[in-house]
């Protein structure tokens, strides 16, 4: 995995998302989810191309049930965009890169 993507856990989630200066896009995923694997390379690209505008992070739902439940994730992949520690946008299901960027663009500086 790219060094541009941060792996989060129940223990590190709040601190990381709350203290970030730029919006954080969190990818809720699991090993057994086919569509999650399809968007992984797209998120790698966005992490590199949009560095400084948005931070990409991943949370494995299998291992981190607290955060997964707290944000009522019921389908993966789910991408949640956090701004100042608060969720501002929810994207459910795998999407092409263009569509994904377009949907989050309003929240990026």
């Amino acid at each position, binding site marked *: 995995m790219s060094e541009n993507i941060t792996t989060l856990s129940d223990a590190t989630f709040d601190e990381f998302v709350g203290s970030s200066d730029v919006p954080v896009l969190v990818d809720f995923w*699991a090993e*057994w*989810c*086919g*569509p*999650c*694997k*399809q*968007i992984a390379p*797209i998120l790698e690209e966005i992490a590199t191309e949009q560095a400084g505008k948005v931070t990409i992070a991943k949370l494995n*739902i*299998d291992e981190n049930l607290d955060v997964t439940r707290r944000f*009522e*994730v*019921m*389908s*993966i*992949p*789910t991408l949640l965009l956090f701004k100042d520690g608060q969720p501002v946008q929810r994207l*459910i*299901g*795998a*999407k*092409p890169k*263009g569509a994904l960027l377009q949907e989050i663009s309003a929240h990026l500086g």
Partner: protein
Amino acid sequence: MTQSTKVLVVGSGPAGLTAAIYTARAQLNPVVIEGEPSSTSDQPGGQLMLTTEVENFPGFPEGITGPELMTNMRAQAARFGAQITTEKVTKLDLTARPFRAWVGGNDGEPDYEATSVILATGAKSIMLDVAGEERLLGHGVSTCATCDGFFFRDLPIVVVGGGDSALEEATFLTRFASSVTIIHRRDSLRASKIMQERALANEKITFLWNTQVTEILGDSKVERIGLTNTLTGEASSMDVAGVFVAIGHRPTTEIFANELDLHPNGYLAVHQGSLTSIEGVFACGDVQDHHYRQAITAAGSGCMAAIDTERWLESQGS
């Protein structure tokens, strides 16, 4: 800039990738437009990307998962030189040769020019098209049991449909759910015998026959569904946490429906193996198969399309 190719394969399920393997080994340097990520069956790798174990694809005595099988096929096509791109064809012009294809937009210069085209666009899942379905998609309504089953641990769920995929999903979901009710609008299943026996023998699975879902209810997530008995018209409701939709598929023909002959049932019409109504355009897989619709028949028809393409290109002296 327009890229020229001898063979353009549209789609990347078992049909498209088998066609790619064969045409690549014939040194035709095929370009495969594999599609774009989505959580429906309309995505790179096709319907198998959303399945779990595939037990009937020959060569895998212990079974193999759908995504693994498709990852292998893709790697095999790439190994022989197929150029695979993660794009979606948005427009095709088959009126003259070379055929032209656009990805991501319909204007300006075409992205690809091709001497021959192999259409392997497959089929998309059909949704129920009832109130609440779209609003609650991802909040209890799911088209992907393997993705979302995990979230329904110890909860009651329903699977809508009566074919192999409905029964496979239902059986898989019993790993998580407290109960799985299969809702089918008829009183018999079209699923294969082995899948039927497995589902009927599973203690967590019950069947609701002659029943249709009329609406899906819940504020922020699925709480209840409305039902109608298809024989008596009687309405009822049922408390559920999850609705998995597996009522079947529709061939993906939008980008060429006005250029090629279709079968009256909407599938792409083929003759003499894989030939379509336009010379130089071939078809394989579920987009043209309204009868078998299996991974192995899709792969087989992909091979047929590749061989037909190769011979046709030879006859054209190219």
